[in-house]
C-alpha cells in the first residue's frame, strides 16, 4: 500500500469501507470499469427497464402478501368483516385473501399493487419484446439473450395465471377448470399429466398448495436466474444503439453508468413504483369479494382472464368445433388453440433470430439497430403477427363486447373469425407500404454524408441521419445567453 493510500482517522467512512472490501475482493478495477461503462440513450431502451422495476415491485409486494395468505383448501366458515360473505363456507385460501383485503391494514393496497404490477410487468415485457424485434436487436451476437427473454416471457405468463388462480374465488376456479380440461386434451400423456399435477381429478385436494409453491418459489427462482443472465449478457455484450453521427458498429455512444445512467435508472424505479402504487390505491383490480368462493357447479357470466391470457381465451372461443377421432382415440377441440397454438407461437418466437439469419443470410455481428422502416419485410411480418394476436385478444372478450355493443355473439364470432384471416395480411401490407414510403422520403438526406449505400442495410452509422437531432439544443442556447449568472 502506498503512502497516499494509507488510512488515517480523517479518511471518510465510505473510502474506508471500499478499502476494506477491496482488500478481500480485489474488485476495485472491475467496479471502476463498471462505473465507467457507457449506455446509449433512447426512450425505447426504457421499456425493458420498466419491466425490471415492475418485477422488483412484484417481489416486494409479493413477499408481504405471503405473510398473510394461507394456501389451504380446508373449508371454514367466514367470520371476517366483509358482511355479505359472513357465515359462508369457503376455503382458507379465499378467506385469507378476504382478510388481506378487509382486515389487514394496508393489505388491500399491497394486494392491488401486486396485481397491477403483474399486469404492467407483462405489458412492458411484451412491448420491450416488440422493440427488440422491430429494431433487429436480436441479431448476432444477441440470440442467446433473445432466448432468455422468451423464456422469461413464457414463465411470467404462467406465473401470472398461477398467481391469480391461488385465491380460490369463483373466477380463478373457473380458469383452473379450463386449464385442467386443456391439460387432459393433450394426446397420450394428457390425463396422466393432469392427474399428477392436480393430484387427481379436478379440483384435486392439493392444488392450491402446489400452485402456491410454484408461484412464490419455483417460478420466481427460475425467472430471477434468467433475469440475472439477461442483464449480465447486456453488460457483457454492451447495449445496442441507433445509428447517428459518430455512432458505428465498433463503438458505444452514450452516458456513463456513474452517476448519470444510475441516477436515471433509480428515478425510473421510483417513478414506476409510484405509478403502480397510485394504480393499486385508486384503481380497483380483481375484487374477489364480488366473485364469491369457488363452487364447481357455478360460473359467473363475463368470465375474463387477465389481459396476457386474453389471446388464449380468444383462440379457445374462435377455434372451430373440430375434433379428430380415429381408432377410438381423439384429439379434442381445446388441444389446437390452447396447446398447439401457444407451442407454435413460442417456438417460432424463440427461433426467429435463427430463421431470419437463414433467410437473409446475414450472419454478421450487429450493434447498430435497424429502424423498422429500413426492414420493411420484417416490420410487415411483425405487424401482421401483432394483428393476429390482437384479434384473438378481442375475440376473448366477445361476450363483453356483445353486451356493450348490443350485438349478437354469433355475429361477433363470424366477424372475428373473418378478421383473423383477413386483418393480418392487410395490416402487414399496409405496414410494408408505409415502411417503403418512409424510407423513400429519407433517402435524399442519407446522401448528404455518405455515398449511396443500400438503404435496407445500414452498416455504419454515417449512412443514416438521425431523424431527431439533440432535442433541447435550441432551448438551451437562449437560456445560457439570457440567463443571469448568479452566485
Amino acid at each position, binding site marked *: 500500500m502506498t503512502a497516499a493510500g494509507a488510512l488515517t482517522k480523517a479518511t471518510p467512512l465510505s473510502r474506508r469501507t471500499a478499502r476494506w472490501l477491496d482488500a478481500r475482493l480485489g474488485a476495485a478495477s472491475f467496479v471502476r470499469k463498471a462505473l*465507467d461503462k457507457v449506455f446509449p440513450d433512447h426512450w425505447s431502451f426504457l421499456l425493458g427497464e420498466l419491466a425490471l422495476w415492475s418485477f422488483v415491485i412484484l417481489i416486494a409486494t409479493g413477499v408481504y402478501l405471503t405473510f398473510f395468505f394461507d394456501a389451504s383448501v380446508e373449508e371454514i366458515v367466514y367470520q371476517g368483516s366483509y358482511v355479505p360473505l359472513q357465515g359462508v363456507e369457503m376455503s382458507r385460501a379465499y378467506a385469507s385473501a378476504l382478510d388481506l383485503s378487509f382486515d389487514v*391494514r*394496508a393489505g388491500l*393496497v399491497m394486494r*392491488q399493487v401486486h396485481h397491477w404490477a403483474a399486469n404492467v410487468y407483462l405489458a412492458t415485457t411484451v412491448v420491450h419484446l416488440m422493440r427488440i424485434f422491430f429494431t433487429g436487436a436480436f441479431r448476432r*451476437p444477441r440470440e442467446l439473450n433473445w432466448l432468455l427473454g422468451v423464456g422469461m416471457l413464457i414463465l411470467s405468463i404462467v406465473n401470472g395465471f398461477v398467481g391469480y388462480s391461488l385465491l380460490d374465488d369463483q373466477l380463478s376456479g*373457473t380458469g383452473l*377448470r379450463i386449464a385442467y*380440461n*386443456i391439460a*387432459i386434451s393433450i394426446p397420450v400423456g394428457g*390425463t396422466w399429466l393432469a*392427474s*399428477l399435477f392436480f393430484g*387427481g*381429478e*379436478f379440483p384435486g385436494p392439493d392444488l392450491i398448495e402446489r400452485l402456491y409453491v410454484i408461484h412464490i418459489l419455483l417460478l420466481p427462482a427460475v425467472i430471477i436466474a434468467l433475469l440475472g443472465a439477461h442483464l449480465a449478457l447486456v453488460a457483457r455484450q*454492451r447495449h445496442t444503439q441507433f445509428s447517428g453521427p459518430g455512432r458505428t*458498429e*465498433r463503438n*458505444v*455512444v*452514450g*452516458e*456513463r453508468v456513474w452517476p*448519470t445512467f444510475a*441516477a436515471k435508472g433509480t*428515478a425510473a424505479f*421510483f*417513478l414506476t413504483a*409510484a405509478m403502480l402504487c397510485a394504480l*393499486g*390505491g*385508486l384503481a380497483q383490480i380483481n375484487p374477489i369479494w364480488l366473485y364469491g368462493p369457488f363452487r*364447481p*357447479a*357455478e360460473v359467473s*357470466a363475463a*368470465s375474463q382472464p387477465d389481459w396476457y391470457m386474453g389471446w388464449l*381465451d380468444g383462440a*379457445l*372461443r*374462435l377455434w*372451430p*368445433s*373440430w375434433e379428430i377421432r380415429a381408432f377410438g*382415440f*381423439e384429439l*379434442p*377441440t381445446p388441444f389446437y*388453440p390452447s396447446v398447439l397454438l401457444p407451442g407454435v407461437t413460442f417456438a417460432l418466437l424463440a427461433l426467429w433470430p435463427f430463421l431470419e439469419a437463414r433467410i437473409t443470410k446475414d450472419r454478421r455481428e450487429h450493434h447498430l439497430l435497424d429502424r423498422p422502416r429500413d426492414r420493411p419485410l420484417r416490420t410487415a411480418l411483425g405487424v401482421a403477427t401483432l394483428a393476429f394476436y390482437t384479434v384473438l385478444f378481442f375475440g376473448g372478450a366477445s*361476450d363483453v363486447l356483445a353486451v356493450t355493443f348490443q350485438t349478437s355473439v354469433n355475429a361477433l*364470432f363470424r366477424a372475428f373469425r373473418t378478421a383473423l384471416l383477413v386483418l393480418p395480411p392487410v395490416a402487414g401490407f399496409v405496414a410494408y407500404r408505409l415502411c417503403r414510403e418512409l424510407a423513400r422520403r429519407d433517402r435524399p438526406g442519407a446522401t448528404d454524408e455518405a455515398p449511396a449505400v443500400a438503404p435496407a442495410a445500414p452498416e455504419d452509422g454515417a449512412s443514416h441521419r438521425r431523424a431527431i437531432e*439533440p432535442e433541447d*439544443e435550441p432551448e438551451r442556447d437562449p*437560456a*445560457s445567453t439570457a*440567463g*443571469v*449568472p448568479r452566485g
Partner: protein
Amino acid sequence: MSTDGDGRRPGANGPGGGERRTRRDDRAERLVVAAFTVSIVGALILAVVYIAGGQAQLEGVALALALGGIGLGIAVWARYFMAADEVVEERHALASTEEEVTAFTAAFEAGEQTLARRGLLAKLGLGALGALGLAALFPIRSLGPRPGQGLKNTAYGDGGRPLRLVDADGVPIRPADLSRSSLTTAWPEGHEHDADASTLLLQVDRERFRPLPGREDWVVGDIVAYSKLCTHTGCPVGLYQTELDLLLCPCHQSTFDVLNGAEPVFGPAARPLPQLPLDVDEEGFLVATGDFSAPVAGGFWDRGRT
C-alpha cells in the same frame, strides 16, 4: 476518452460549465427541492393514514407521493445537474482470438484424453448418472393417482342402483319442484360436492321435445337432465335462453339445443352435453337410473375407449 461528441448539451458540471448558475438551474433546483419535500410529506401522510386505521385509496396516493417525489427529484437532478455530454467507448470484439480458442480447445481435449484413458470407468459413470436420473423420476409418480375410470364415470354409475337427485343442500327433488323458466342444478344424493356430477334439470315443452332414439324413457314427463359441464373445457353451462330452448356456456359461448339431445349448435364445443336417464322412485322423487350417456366435460385422448 470523454469527448464532446457532436457538442450536444454541454453539461452544467461539464468542462467549462464551472460554477455559472443560470435561471434555468435555479428553477430546476427548486423543482428538486419541491419533489423531495413532497416525498417526505407523502411518507408522513402514509404514517398518519395507517395509524388512523388505514384506507386503501389514501395509502396508495401517499405511497405514490413518497415514491414519485424521490423519482421526480432524482430525474430532474440527473437531467440538469449531471454530465450529459456523450461519451464514446470502443467496442471490443466479443469473440476470443484464434490463439485463445486453440489454447482452450487443447486444454479441454487434454483433459478429455485423461478421462478417455479409463474409458470403461467414464462409460460406467455416465451410466450411473443416467440410472440415477431415471430413478429420480419415480417419486414424481406419487404426485397423483393413475388417471383411471374417474374421468369416464360419475357417482351416478357407482352403485349400480338408482340414485336420487338432490339440490346443493342434499334435499331430494320432485318433478313438481321444477318450473318451465328456470334451471335447477342437482347432484347424486351423497355426492353434493362432486365437481363432475353436477346435473341440469330442465322442464321442456313436450310438444317440441324430440328425445333421441333409445332415450324415449330417459325423461320424466317433461323433465330432462343433462350434464352441467360443457363438453369444450368443462365450464358449467349456466345460461338458459328459455324461449329458444338453448343452453349457453358463459366461458366460450358454446350453445346447446335442449330440445334436440343438447347437440351443440354454435361455438367451439364439438359434442352434445351427456344426458342422464331419469325416473321417479316410489316416493315420487327424481332418480337417475344410470350414469350419463357419455363421459362429462372436456374431451381427452382415450375418452372413447373402455
